[in-house]
């Protein structure tokens, strides 16, 4: 019997390798073709601390690189959050947005857009800051609502309160859109999800969140495993059920809030990547959570690549590409696995 329950070192190495390869592919391809030689040259210059110049360097350094670097943690965060939510409330329909923070963040962003909030020292930061603040407020509202109606914080209560809250905020969003007049278009575009215009500040924010909240979740893998036996059983083996729930729900909200604030509402990833990982790597959260990070990152990188390049120069909304390709590939995985299982 192994001492470690997680992914084998070999799998870790392979997956990291695939992430790096994907990253490189996504940097070198784009709607403007940059010769491979130039790409490598510019990247080397960057690594060596030189300042490359020219149109290719402009595109690569200011447009493509920050975008690709934001896409990666967003994909990881959404998938990880989805896996944790599905684990803790034991419901295959759950994902990060079940808690209501996703639509809370969207509401914040939409309010910022419609008021034209502007924070002078942060370029473009209005939406991001508002989204994060609102995702927080949402979490607090949902949790205290759930706690008020049900001191035990049972799953059914959390689910229902989360869903109700997200419907509530979505209706706020619709209302704002209905009265937004001239700004309707930008709001609509924003809600479709877009990672265009990400900058290095966003990348930093995403990475910090992913590291902190991601670690909190990874460290809760045993607890998540315990929950799959039922909450009472988890308590019997020593899990502090309420505390664990709060830690996990707060981490999930962080991940979701920040991702939404940067990338808009990108659906589907958080629901489907965990299911796919469960089919591929099993339901043990020691394996599931890390694999979600890798697979989520890889998946969204390629989806973004397709969004950027498929009908170049036009860009497709990333949510659209994600659902499209994600749906098809998930059905294939599901089909193969069921056939394989022989049932």
């Amino acid at each position, binding site marked *: *019997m192994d*001492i*470690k*329950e*997680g992914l084998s070192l070999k799998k870790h190495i392979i997956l990291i390798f695939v992430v790096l390869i994907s990253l490189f592919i996504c940097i070198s391809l784009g709607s403007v073709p940059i010769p491979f030689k130039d790409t490598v040259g510019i990247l080397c210059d960057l690594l060596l601390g030189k300042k490359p110049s020219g149109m290719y360097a402009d595109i690569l350094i200011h447009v493509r690189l920050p975008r690709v670097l934001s896409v990666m943690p967003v994909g990881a965060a959404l998938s990880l959050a989805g896996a944790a939510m599905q684990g803790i409330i034991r419901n295959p329909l759950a994902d990060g947005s079940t808690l209501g923070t996703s639509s809370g963040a969207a509401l914040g962003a939409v309010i910022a857009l419609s008021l034209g909030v502007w924070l002078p020292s942060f370029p473009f930061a209005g939406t991001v800051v508002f989204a994060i603040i609102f995702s927080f407020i949402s979490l607090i509202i949902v949790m205290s609502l759930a706690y008020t109606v049900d001191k035990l914080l049972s799953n059914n209560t959390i689910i229902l309160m989360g869903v109700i809250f997200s419907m509530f905020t979505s209706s706020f969003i619709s209302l704002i859109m209905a009265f937004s007049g001239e700004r309707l278009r930008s709001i609509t575009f924003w809600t479709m999800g877009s990672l265009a215009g990400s900058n290095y500040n966003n990348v930093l924010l995403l990475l910090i969140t992913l590291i902190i909240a991601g670690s909190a979740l*990874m*460290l809760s*893998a*045993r607890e998540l*495993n*315990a929950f*799959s*036996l*039922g909450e*009472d*059983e988890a*308590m*019997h*083996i*020593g*899990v*502090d*059920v309420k505390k664990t729930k709060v830690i996990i729900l707060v981490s999930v909200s962080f991940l979701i809030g920040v991702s939404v604030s940067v990338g808009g509402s990108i659906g589907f990833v958080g629901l489907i990547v965990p299911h796919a990982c469960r089919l591929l790597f099993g*339901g*043990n959260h*020691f394996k599931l959570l890390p694999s979600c990070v890798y697979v989520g990152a890889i998946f969204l990188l390629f989806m973004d690549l397709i969004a950027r390049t498929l009908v170049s120069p036009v860009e497709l909304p990333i949510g659209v590409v994600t659902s499209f390709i994600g749906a098809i590939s998930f059905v294939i995985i599901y089909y193969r696995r069921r056939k394989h299982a022989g049932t």
Partner: protein
Amino acid sequence: MLELKNINIQYGSKYAVKDVSIKLYSGDWLVLLGANGAGKSSIIKALARAVKYSGEILLEGKNISCFSSRQYAQRVGVLSQLHEKDPSLSVSEVVRLGRYSHGKRLFSGLNKIDIQKVQQAIAVTGLIEYSERPMHTLSGGERQRAYLAQVFAQDTDILLLDEPVNSLDMKYTLSLLKAIDVWRKERRGIVISALHDLSLAACFGSRALILLNGEQLFEGNIKDALYSPHIDMAYDLPVVKTMQDVYSFWEKA
């Protein structure tokens, strides 16, 4: 060492357990006896801190609500009567979870001792071949053994076992009860179990608590309990006579 003082348990307005008091010492095996709905599981749940109760339960003189989840799980292992139908983990994952309260918090980190306890628990319950099977592919008895293995791996001084031999075949019924018995005597632990099979209760228990509609009819030595009129009242049957009838088949052999 473990003391229940005037325990009452209520579901809504209905009392499931009324004013039960008992004091248990190291090495005791308390069998909870009583008909269906007498309140056996409720008492076990109260001890496991899974239901609200009024009254006091003291462990090592301290109210059990003072322990953190982890501390409590290091001292008390619990086997419930009802389980989820489709747990998605494998047997070894379930048993490993028994070590949760002992583990370092980082990642899967089971140390040598943990691994040894887990392997031992799997071996005792005869699940070595099954250890990588997902729980939902096991037969009823195999599943019950896996849950028992988890409790054994938890390696506590106190075991709360609600109908531990449900679905077990004869061999494992006897060998597992025997193993628990040996363990309790050696380690001087406390076992509290609900058992419907009075012969097994007689073989393995040391003390008995007879419940009738949540009320404590009798508390004392198991032998006395089984020969007392209280047991007949609790089950609404002439118990000794009935058992003799049921077992008469084997006499003839």
